[in-house]
């Protein structure tokens, strides 16, 4: 196997006296679907924020596609190919569904500020290209009928989907999903699992998933890492994780017998 797409090496971050993520080492390969689980407050979202450049690690290193990412800003990391969604949906609320995705095509636009002012041929061609790409994405994910609606007026499940599509519009190589199943009903969760698999296969990208819902995590992840109090306590296949004594003790509880966890 060649070098992994994402490599965390003893990544650590402290806030004052609190170590939120401690010496976290893991890797995600190209086109791999990895789950990151752990009890509330275990540091999963903080790990996401480290990977996406929202926080800088206190120590340790992070590499993406072979390049060290420490010191880069989130928008530069998106440029390299890391896109994400948020635990509490963060769409552009004053924009339509269409414009939400259009805004995320910024980094692949070739026409700039002067073209926007001059409104010449380069601008028109550039805008047409962007619009065609947005329409294509909307059609693939069947959001084209709602394209003119305000993002905030969509049903909850569609908002989650739109957030994933918006992340895809940046053409990522690694997609980070932060609790995409939160607040969904069982049908929506099934749809989501199908959607994540579809995205991974169609765009050949890697997915790193933070999720509380054991059915979703166990159902789609190829490998799972478990955090507790900021430390990785286990990593392995879903079957291994389900049988891992420390994981059962720390987190899974009832799910160890094959049922869903209490907070799922």
């Amino acid at each position, binding site marked *: 196997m060649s070098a992994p797409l994402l490599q965390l090496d003893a990544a650590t971050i402290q806030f004052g006296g609190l170590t939120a993520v401690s010496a976290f080492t893991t890797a995600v390969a190209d086109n791999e679907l990895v789950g990151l689980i752990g009890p509330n407050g275990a540091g999963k979202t903080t790990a996401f924020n480290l990977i996406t450049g929202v926080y800088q690690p206190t120590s340790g290193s992070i590499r993406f596609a072979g390049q060290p990412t420490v010191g880069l800003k989130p928008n530069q990391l998106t440029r390299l190919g890391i896109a994400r969604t948020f635990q509490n949906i*963060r769409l*552009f609320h*004053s924009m339509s569904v269409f414009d939400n995705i259009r*805004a995320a095509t910024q*980094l692949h636009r070739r026409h700039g500020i002067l073209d926007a*002012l001059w409104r010449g041929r380069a601008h028109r061609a550039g805008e047409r290209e962007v619009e065609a790409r947005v329409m294509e994405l909307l059609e693939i994910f069947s959001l084209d009928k709602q394209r003119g609606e305000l993002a905030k007026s969509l049903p909850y499940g569609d908002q989650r989907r739109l957030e994933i599509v918006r992340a895809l519009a940046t053409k990522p190589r690694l997609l980070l999903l932060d609790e995409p199943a939160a607040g969904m009903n069982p049908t929506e969760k099934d749809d989501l699992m199908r959607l994540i698999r579809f995205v991974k296969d169609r765009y050949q990208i890697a997915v790193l998933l933070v999720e509380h819902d054991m059915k979703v995590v166990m159902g789609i992840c190829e490998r799972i890492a478990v955090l507790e109090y900021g430390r990785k306590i286990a990593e392995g296949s879903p079957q291994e994780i389900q049988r891992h004594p420390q994981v059962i003790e720390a987190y899974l509880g009832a799910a160890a017998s094959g049922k869903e966890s209490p907070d799922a």
Partner: protein
Amino acid sequence: MSLPGAKRWLLLGIALAAVASHFAHSPELGLNRYYLGVAVDVGIAIILAVSLNLINGHTGQFSLGHAGFMAVGGYTAAKISLLISPAGEAAWGFPLALLGGGLLAALAGLLVGIPSLRLRGDYLAIVTLGFGEIIRVAVQNMESVGAASGLKGIPKYTTLGWTFGLAAITIYVITALVNSTYGRGFIAVHDDEVAAESMGIPTTRYKVTAFVTGAFFAGIAGGLYAHHKQFLSPTGFDFLKSIDIVVMVILGGMGRTAGVAAAAVILTLLPESLRAFSEYRMIIYSLLIILLMMLRPQGLFTFQRKQGGAS
């Protein structure tokens, strides 16, 4: 607004301004100088409000320093004009003076923009407020621009045509900027900075661009003002002036160019029309603003955004 023929509209606007100006200023027509003066005030207010709207409305930053940028532009332009021809006989130098004022104001926008980008909301408002006051106090102590007693004898170059031509350009530039894939970055920063950054939008660069562009046009407005009133005094650029412009932006519906321009017209004419009630003028003005804000908190001219998204 889609802008297929936007450039044509811009040219039409400038042409109309020039024609209107030609007739309005011709002595045969003998238009009342007071009304002409108010009309120029209106045009300057439109430039100020529409340019602040890029910063406060579209990009969602809270600047209280617009009068400061206006002062930088006004004093610079006035000084340039006085250097070219102290007697005011070189109207050809006017565009140079305006451009110089705009560029120096833009530089001030860059200087204020960079450090204040780490700040949000109220904190940014305080920093920009402080900047405006620094400019005012600095001017008050600069002998070369008349210090506290003001800068007198600025040539009267500003006409209706210059004012509304430049107002048309301001509206065009800011509308064209925002209604493009490039410009949607401003609105993304306004809606959710964290999400914008994660979508690959360099939020810092967008905020600086908003400050620099907004300041540039505020500087142009300052230059027009200087050559309109023919007198500049630091007290004219205190923070109340900034507040006036902020009120126009809020009343017009943050981020709606047409609404903000209309609010600039109304809020300039309103105090003028209340001159008859001189003692109660400011009280009535304030009450009206309170009423308007209570009745239309979303802005006077805000309606549901059109399908397809752009304003």
